[in-house]
């Protein structure tokens, strides 16, 4: 005992000698809280918690029988808190996806108790069988929900998650927050074994979301959704590709038809067979589509991850019950988009990043540029797609620059919906940028 007291006294002396008072380590802080079942209000025991701060080791705790937990001896700072118990997930009112809870322990004012609300998550499981009743293996099954207004350009539903069938055709999609969902077995382009006239099928046996049965899932619900894939013959859409000039080298064109109003980002859309300048979609369901074509040099290096597109097109297409026998597709050059950033009143002009990007089942398309001193920029190397624009500060991900409007010549572009590239007319792009407090001219 005497030795222990002596050691402590020496240690205390060493500390008082080494540390000037103004450099003393900040006093440790404590985080305590409780976990409750959001449905019943009852405290939840055995929930494990993880508190992490960038660069430091996370620390862990577990809720007791009263749902209480405590983290002692923390260095003041900003943390993220996560909670985990089998069958449950934290409630997050703003997103269907669980996110870590930000915890600010930088000051005494920030300290306090925290309550975490957990909900028993829902599960959709089922079996996917082909039109003859044989289980379908490795088939992607997407779970979707209605898209918030203005969320995406042309999708009415957004994908929440994707599951895959096993050798029995069974899938399990878990961690679903209480909500209404749609389920679809997707004919993806890389899936083997789908015949031409087998179609992406919505639960239980529907060709589109409107005819599909929605699943309303409450906390802890386990719902079955067996899907029988639809067999439905389509019509032929064929025609000719017309390049802007006599091709200087062999060209290779890929074409795809996307439903004009799509329900997900799935790749289960018709791709064309191309022979010379002829193309053919063998079996298309009648409806409204957007056709995308991308032309690149044939026999390109197989290692080349991103082939350089030479020509391309995006155009709307109405496919009727008789199909389309002879459709001429005029391929267009893919010029850079030039434009200028102008700043809203009272904003300090400064260089910015201009980003542009979009996707089709054929390729992703994107470019970024830094504006010159006069605000001008050029975005090059783009491929046909529906493109969206954004701006950001040169340094850091989060800044004050906000894109207020975009004009192509005299035409106002929708920032939410984007625009199709290649452009119909060669007009300059004008981006008007607003600013937060720190971006104001002084």
């Amino acid at each position, binding site marked *: 005992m005497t030795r222990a007291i002596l050691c402590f006294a020496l240690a205390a002396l060493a500390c008082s000698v080494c540390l000037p008072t103004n450099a003393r380590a900040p006093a440790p802080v404590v985080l305590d809280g409780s976990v409750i079942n959001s449905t019943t209000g009852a405290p939840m025991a055995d929930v494990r918690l993880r508190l992490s701060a960038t660069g430091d080791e996370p620390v862990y705790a577990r809720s007791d029988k009263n749902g209480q937990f405590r983290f002692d001896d923390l260095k003041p700072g900003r943390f993220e808190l996560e909670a985990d118990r089998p069958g449950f997930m934290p409630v997050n009112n703003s997103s269907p996806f669980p996110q870590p809870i930000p915890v600010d322990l930088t000051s005494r004012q920030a300290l306090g108790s925290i309550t975490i609300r957990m909900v028993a998550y829902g599960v959709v499981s089922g079996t996917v069988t082909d039109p003859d009743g044989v289980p379908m293996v490795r088939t992607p099954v997407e779970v979707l929900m209605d898209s918030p207004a203005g969320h995406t350009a042309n999708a009415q539903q957004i994908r929440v998650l994707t599951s895959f069938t096993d050798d029995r055709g069974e899938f399990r999609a*878990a961690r679903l927050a209480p909500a209404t969902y749609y389920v679809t077995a997707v004919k993806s382009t890389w899936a083997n074994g*789908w015949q031409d006239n087998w179609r992406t099928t919505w639960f239980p046996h529907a060709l589109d979301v409107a005819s599909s049965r929605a699943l309303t899932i409450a906390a802890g619900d386990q719902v079955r959704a067996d899907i029988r894939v639809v067999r439905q013959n389509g019509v032929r859409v064929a025609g000719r590709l017309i390049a802007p000039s006599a091709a200087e080298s062999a060209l290779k064109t890929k074409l795809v038809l996307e439903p004009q109003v799509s329900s997900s980002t799935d790749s289960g859309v018709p791709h064309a067979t191309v022979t010379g300048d002829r193309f053919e979609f063998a079996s298309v369901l009648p409806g409204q589509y957007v056709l995308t074509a991308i032309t690149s040099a*044939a026999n390109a290096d197989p290692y080349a991850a991103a082939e350089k597109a030479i020509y391309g097109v995006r155009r709307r297409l109405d496919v009727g019950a008789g199909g389309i026998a002879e459709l001429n597709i005029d391929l267009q050059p893919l010029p850079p988009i030039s434009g200028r950033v102008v700043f809203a009143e009272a904003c300090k002009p400064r260089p910015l990043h201009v980003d542009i990007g979009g996707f089709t089942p054929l390729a992703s398309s994107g470019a970024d540029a830094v504006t010159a001193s006069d605000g001008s920029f050029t975005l090059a190397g783009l491929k046909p797609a529906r493109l969206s624009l954004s701006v950001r500060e040169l340094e850091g991900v989060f800044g004050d620059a906000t894109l207020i409007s975009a004009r192509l010549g005299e035409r106002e572009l929708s920032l939410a919906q984007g625009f199709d590239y290649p452009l119909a007319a060669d007009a300059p792009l004008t981006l008007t940028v607003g600013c937060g407090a720190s971006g104001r001219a002084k």
Partner: protein
Amino acid sequence: MRLLPLVLACAAALSGQTVVVQGDVYNSITGTPIAGAQVSVRGMVGSDTTATVTCATDAAGHFEASMPGPVAYSLLSVSRAGFVAWGGAIPNDPEAPRPPQRVLLMPEAVISGKVVDEDGFPAEGAWVEILRYNFTAEGRKLIKEGGAPVNDLGEYRIFNVPYGLYYLRVVPSGRIAQWDARYIPEYYLGTLEPRLENRVRVEAGQEQHGIDFRLTRHEGVTISGHVVMPAGAPTPVALLESVEDHMNPPRSLALDPADGGFVARHVPPGTWALRAMAGSGQLQPGDFLAERTYKVGDTDIRDIVLTPRAIEPQDVTGKVIFEGGVQPHAIVVGLRRNTGQVSSARTGDDGSFVIHGVLPGHYRIDVQATNSDSVAGIGPGFAVSARLGDREVLRQGFDLDGAPPGGPLQVTVTEAVAILEGKLVDKNGLPVAGGRVMLYGDWCRFAATTDRDGAFHFDHLYRGEYRVVPLARNNGNPEDSDVPPVQIVEGRNPPLVLKLQ
């Protein structure tokens, strides 16, 4: 009458000449026909177009697929729930009629179980892998043969497994890896190294349940240091990547903006590459790179200083020669860096090539078909030699360190095909039906299923050194120890009789 809708379903819609691919699909163990199997035929039509036709077998296990013709080359893939998927090539002769294909599907085995962590919580997001030893150019290596994710209940189910003995391993990823970095890959029964006695045996058609894991936390070691950039260089990133296991994504290390300090905690034993780079992120000329490899044991590695330098790429010139006076055709010569990145060039009319901008590193030569050929499954021929100056470098590869390579790279390619046939018999000399025969070359691996007479065949081989490994059901894996190689020559080789022990 029954066949009519089937043939219509299989017919390609493009009009004109057609080529019919037909065959029958059987259960390799029982010999009975398999109905409802999905058959996909992919062929090269014209110079740059592939066509795929998909149909199903009828009640007699028969299929007929009508392709637009002429078809230069065809690939056949057959799958059905409950069987190991099968793929193979159909002989490459545009003029000759295709002989009927006889496809033997092996009933799949399934391995399933539960994975929980030290708290008994489901290890959601982890992957369970099955592995076997393969013979490769780099020697005998444990290679992944399949795998499945662990779901929210902690359950996994690996299917499409051929019968045999497998090592099993859990690789933490997804939620479990994010929750606690102390969970590291573990083999079945909790070891960090593969153990012969812990392999799991599955028979054809068997479901092996209850292969459960309980993961334990491992502290591992800490690797720490600083990245020191030259003045004016862009902001770097630092990555830690397993050298032995390229399939696992590299770990991104946070760099202290003030002093470039980094700390990687809980690094398990193994060989690790530590890399700091700045610039485009794609490793291009003008980017900055520093790379070091560490053998991690049970001791922390601290005070590392990485000083990235501007990358100085080199051009590698060379020529491809086709053996036997064969007229050269365009192929792609690739240099595969030990990090997986590939630099490549397409050969010109005389077989010459220039691969521009090759970065420092260790490289192996990789000959590929051109894009259109590779889509159609046409092999480029097979490299039998590669000389850099006066050194043979095909098997060992070569190093580039920023200085010009020691001379032009001359790659010799053969297109002469070898065929190997044989018979698998049991210890009494009786044929083994539905058995598997594995064939390992330096760069490739083939599997054949024996028919009712125990016969197997491999075509589209190239000459060289191979290991032929018969796999009997109820037997061990010969790959678990070394197997003497056999020399395969061009043309038809003397038939092999493989006797199971």
